[in-house]
């Protein structure tokens, strides 16, 4: 798959995953890996970090295991919701065109 294309899709799916509840980074990675088994788990981590840097996701720190480091929980922001809405819109448009095409 083309890298740029794939990146857009993965980003959309990650945003969708953290849409309703704040999710622990590790769980996001495991969840995504189920659907995209050929993608490296760390790719999802990198996407989460970028979403946070761009203001599309916020981080809340939760308690880790006893003695372990704190866990980071990612949740979508309002800006993230807008980004997600635009992504889904353009994805549906492309999907519609491709379906009309008979592919």
């Amino acid at each position, binding site marked *: 798959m083309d890298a740029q294309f794939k990146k857009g899709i993965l980003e959309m799916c990650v945003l969708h995953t953290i849409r309703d509840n704040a999710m*622990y*980074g*590790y769980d996001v*990675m495991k969840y995504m*890996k189920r659907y995209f088994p050929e993608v*490296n*788990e*760390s*790719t999802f*981590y*990198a*996407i989460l*970090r*970028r979403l946070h*840097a*761009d203001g599309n996701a916020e981080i809340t720190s939760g308690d*880790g*295991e006893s003695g*372990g*480091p*704190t*866990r*980071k929980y990612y949740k979508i922001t309002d800006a993230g919701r807008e980004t997600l809405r635009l992504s889904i819109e353009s994805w549906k448009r492309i999907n519609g065109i491709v379906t009309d095409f008979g592919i």
Partner: protein
Amino acid sequence: MEKRDFLKKLHKSLRRTFTKQEIRDILTDYESFFISGANDGKSENEICTELGDPDAVALELVKELPRNNTVSPPINIFIKIIAALLTLFGFSYSLLIYPGFNLVRDSLVLFCVFAAVLFLALIGKRNIHKSGKAYVLILSFGNVLLFGIVILIDTFIKELIYVTANILPLKPNSIMSKIIDFFKFADIEFLTNFMSAIVYISAAIFFLISVTAVLGFYRSTPFYFAMLIHAAGALNYIGSVYNILNDMQTIEHFINDMNSALKIYFASIALALIFMPIIHIQSEKLPQVNRPSPLPLKNIFIGILSAALTFGVFFYFYIVFAWYNPIRENIVLFGVIPVILILALVWKRKSIPQIPLKPIKIHKFILPIGYILLFLIGAIMYVFIKKSLNYALSSPPLIPNNIIDTIVFNITDRFKDIEAYLNFLGNLVDASTIITIVITVAAVYGFYRSTPLYSIMIIQAVGVINLIGRICDIVGDMADMTKFNLAMDDILKFYFISIALTIIFIPITYILSRKVKK
């Protein structure tokens, strides 16, 4: 792999690109992933496999960095100040403090100070994302300016002294001769003031360029470092010229001192060239991913073609031209080589969709070794033949001044008859040519297979071949010793022009062929 190894490797890969805080953040996250994985009943080995190779992880994180991140991390400020102070110290040392011209001490300070700046700068230097193309222009313009001023000053002062002392007749109708003609009748006070003005203005320009270079080095591409070394060399040269003019005793001394100063200046250019790949690779050490990179068939064709073109130029220099014609040869040197380079770049861009990422460590060694070898060949050919012939042909035998003289004179003494001596010179020329051609072929191959930094090795090699060819001509054409020595000084300048040319070309070549990358 175990958790500890994974985190250690990841830390190493991240270090070049991220700030300490970011690294701590990322490593903490990965530590929590290991703990969560263990809770799911996985072994450390399994978790590592799922997370992927640490280098690949770092690469993913680098790719996800915001694009226009041009601000260097705050830790750099301290290092910047130290580096700037050291640089200032180096400059003021060469320009103001020392009272007399001392070749060994000055070179030592020049090179030690810059090695120290280099070291400090590299510690603080991160992988900074570049933006804008302005630096191509700034770099080319800065280097050309430095070089142009130094060459003009050298030519002007030498010609003025030669003409005043009646060593050489005024060359009719050249621009320089008209200028000299004007100054020839100026009174000594005016001349002194004029020379001081030139020295101060040039020093100011050089200083401005070096400040730009320091800034540029910290804000954008490491290519600025080469300009910094170059500017330091130019400043040192100006300081030396000032001292030489104040200290002038005999014409012979003056000419020798001027040539030494010019040589040290050129050594700074050569140094910049040798350092360039190291700096470049060090400060752009992104995590590398090994990818198979088969050489496409079309590429081999282009490789052979450009190698043939390169050989054509060599044979032109070496075999075809029968006598010394500076204008024609410079057109070939400066016209043909850039054309080959540009053609090659155009082809390269069309034929390779993506420059393969190669293990960079090899280039870090091959490139500097190639430059140093070429530089040594040029230096040995020039120094040996000049000194040896001077020794062999002078009627009161010359007394060795330094260790190099002693070695050269001893070798010359070993030949009893003139035929064996000439044979030896011929063999020396042939051996140098063959080594240079081998290096060139390696450079051409490297240029097509990997980094564009190899293109500069091609230009430098052409300069060396040209030097060898001209030395042969001059020796074949030799009339008297003074003319021979002057002609030798002259060709050395042209050889150094080819080195300077490479410095000017590097940023352009590099940026042009980077467009290939997706």
